[in-house]
């Protein structure tokens, strides 16, 4: 795999959140999904920066959605994972699984 196709941990997390939200993946829903699953605060700015990096790599694509009153009439930006993105994410997670296989956590970590 080329270096450009490798994924950082936050990129994996954001891509998995986008996949989980399916067709409803936009800034706020991704933010809520990450906080719910990771059980920690994630800044919106971090998510936007990650999404921008992923879009530049061609791993996700965006489309403009609908506006609503609670958004001050501003349109949403929906995201979805491309085929290339799915391949990269799968390869990245499989590599982690391979690395983790057979390892044991000792003491308090067990």
């Amino acid at each position, binding site marked *: 795999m080329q270096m450009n196709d490798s994924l950082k941990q936050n990129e994996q997390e954001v891509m998995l959140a986008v996949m989980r939200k399916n067709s409803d993946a936009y800034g706020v829903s991704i933010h809520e999904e990450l906080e719910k699953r990771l059980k920690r605060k994630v800044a*919106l700015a971090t998510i936007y920066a990650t999404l921008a990096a992923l879009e530049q790599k061609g791993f996700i694509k965006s489309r403009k959605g609908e*506006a609503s009153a*609670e958004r001050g009439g501003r*349109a949403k930006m929906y995201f979805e994972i491309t085929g290339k993105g799915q391949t990269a994410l799968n390869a990245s997670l499989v590599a982690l699984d391979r690395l983790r296989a057979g390892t044991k956590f000792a003491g308090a970590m067990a």
Partner: protein
Amino acid sequence: MKDEISFYIQGDDLLVCVSSRNYIFRDAANAIKANPAAFDAVVENIVESEGNPHIGSHLNLALRELRNSLHHGHNVDIEFTQSEPTSPTPLPNPPQFATYLYAAFAAKNSSESQLGDLEEMFVKNAERFGETRARRLYWLEVGLAIMPAVRRLITGIIAYYLKGKIGL
């Protein structure tokens, strides 16, 4: 704009809220609980009338179907009344200066949707934690977002100043 429709059981009544108007189906709650098909008839008719300004006639039709559905086995007297329009609660506004700062520093092609996300989160936080905390959280998100750009700007100004001083 489409009408938003929600249903509430209020005591013995079925309350149907269409945008800012409330319609009350008197004594319909128990009948609907006993016969869900009657509720489906109401829902179907009101949903069909989305965007129709003469929604009252659709509600009357829904009421008639509701009565028909309840004809067997349920002897209930359902009265249709339309309440006075209620003014919708105004949404709280996020800090304007923070919004201006964000718009000034964010990438132009995505700032519109990002400001929408921030405003949506502000409204949700205001409902959940109150407006004061929601404003603090809004400022925090804006601060975290613009910090790298502000840092770059300050570094650039210092570098420009130093170059001038050294004479490069």
